[in-house]
């Protein structure tokens, strides 16, 4: 590959859409399509592996959508410049973040694609990470929260499906996510997670947030301390006295 060429990752769930973008990029010249993905989590993985300069990211995709993928990508040490592509619903992008490089309307015009890529080339990587951490405003926009949480693993991101998370726990500095395949440190605060996943997780203690789907039972030991038992997991989490009653009620429902 020539050092001057822009390295682009193409993400769209529709094959004809990817095909057309690939052809347009080919005709623009001096651009290398380093990879293609058909959904958000695949896109985040490839973005970490291939370190593209630019990611052309479809907004509406099954599974993880483009907006969430962009948010995860921003956590990468060298995040790509994200350019959203969309057929119609630009309001979602505009609400997402004004600092995204931009968006392209499908069918994409070659001139606009070129102009956007040139703008992306001018921006340094550090400016791009500004897209990250838009937590607060997101909570009410996406009632269900993200589909995945991201943990940094060196240069890469590890995406953990929220549906496989047993619990989040926090000590002074870090938040740990305990999930089906182990545990990882993540950068989200417990408070932000509680807000984002209010419908799916429940606070059992000052420092722990448990996935409601895995709640099995609440029990009390000889000293009067309450514990919560989780399905699939041989661990007991301390429950604060204040929250024990609430939790019991929730289990009965």
């Amino acid at each position, binding site marked *: 590959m020539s050092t001057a060429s822009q390295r682009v990752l193409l993400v769209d769930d529709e094959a004809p859409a990817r095909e*057309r973008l690939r052809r347009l990029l080919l005709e623009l010249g001096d651009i290398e399509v380093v990879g293609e993905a058909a959904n958000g989590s695949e896109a985040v993985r490839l973005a970490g592996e291939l370190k593209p300069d630019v990611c052309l990211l479809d907004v509406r995709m099954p599974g993880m959508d483009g907006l969430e993928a962009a948010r995860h990508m921003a956590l990468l040490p060298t995040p790509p410049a994200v350019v959203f592509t969309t057929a119609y619903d630009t309001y979602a992008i505009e609400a997402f973040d004004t600092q995204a490089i931009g968006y392209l309307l*499908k*069918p994409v015009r070659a001139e606009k694609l070129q102009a956007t890529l040139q703008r992306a080339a001018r921006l340094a990587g550090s400016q791009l990470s500004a897209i990250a951490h838009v937590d607060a405003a997101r909570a009410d926009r996406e009632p269900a929260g993200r589909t995945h949480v991201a943990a940094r693993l060196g240069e890469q991101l590890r995406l953990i499906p929220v549906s496989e998370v047993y619990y989040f726990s926090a000590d002074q500095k870090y938040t740990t996510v305990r999930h089906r395949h182990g545990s990882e440190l993540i950068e989200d605060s417990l408070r932000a997670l509680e807000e984002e996943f209010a419908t799916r997780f429940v606070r059992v203690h000052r420092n722990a947030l448990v996935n409601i789907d895995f709640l099995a039972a609440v029990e009390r030991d000889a000293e009067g301390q309450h514990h919560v038992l989780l399905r699939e997991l041989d661990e007991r989490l301390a429950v604060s006295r204040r929250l024990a009653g609430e939790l019991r009620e929730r289990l009965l429902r």
Partner: protein
Amino acid sequence: MNGSDNAEAAPSRPAAPTRGLILPDFCAARAVLAVVLIVTLTAVVLSVARHAAGLSFWLDLARTALFMLWTGLGSAAALCLLRRPLGTMPLPTAVAVAMGAMLTVIALVSAGVLWLGSNAFLGVRASNLLLPEQPWRFFAANLGIGAIVAALALRYFYVAGEWRRNVELQARARVHALQARIRPHFLFNSMNTIAALTRSNAAQAEEAVQDLADLFRANLNEKRSSITLKEELEVARIYQRIEQLRLGERLHVIWDVTDLPMRAQVPGLLMQPLLENAIYHGIEPRQSGGVVTVSGALDGDVIGLTVRNPLPEAGGEAHSGNRIALDNIRERMELLYPGRSSVEASRVGDEYVVRLRFPHVEDPVRTSSL
């Protein structure tokens, strides 16, 4: 008067299947003026009719109008207060309550007149001409006339209300028809697919452009409110062909419609919006795609159509619900087949199922005897 602002909002409520008596807002100045006019004219009619009996015409008119204005405005006030409960009661109860209220007002005003007559507090000797002498005849006559006039008025208000409701329903259906038209999302995605195909597969691109043209022609068809079932299914198939290009292997549609009477007249744009919903909500959010089943059967003289699609994958994000298409179909069917059609949507197992039922009607030209 209070309450009139809230009452204005009532017509925008979705039409409930069982509804009470919808009356004009008697709290509003317009309705009060109308009541005054109607009452005065009726008093004139009664006085003119009685003129031959030798009574002084002007005196008769004055006392009749005075009495009727009291009853008319009293009834309007009563109906004004009762408007909201009347709108929610079952129709027979509402009619009984409204009649009861009006007759009570008449009885009270009559009693008041009799009381005045017997006490003669005016200082002037109450003449026979001004106040009635035979209380029970007076009462009975007033209540009799009142009951007839009130019944006629209620009947009139009921018919007028129904007519207005129907006009509103039609207007709303038209608005919804505009809203339910092909999603912009679909149009632009299709354009994108065609843009890709023009280079890679020109023949397929040409086919897609023709399909898109046919689909829009069907959508823009304003004149014909009904088409044959065969035409309707063809529009849905065209829609499927366009989506197939875009979604490829992710979309499978099973058509089980061979038992349907293809010449039956159906409202246009019945199946295509349902198929569009099924794909938009059921297939697109699924990475692995899925199967949409369109099936239909004739049950006696009722046509049943069913569209089923898988639910979004667990953990996946479902597109926010859009019931406009269903509401629109429901409204149009209710206009065409009042009380004889149904649109049901439900979750059955891991599928979302929409069922339509409506009467089988062949070409109205050939079956005009119906």
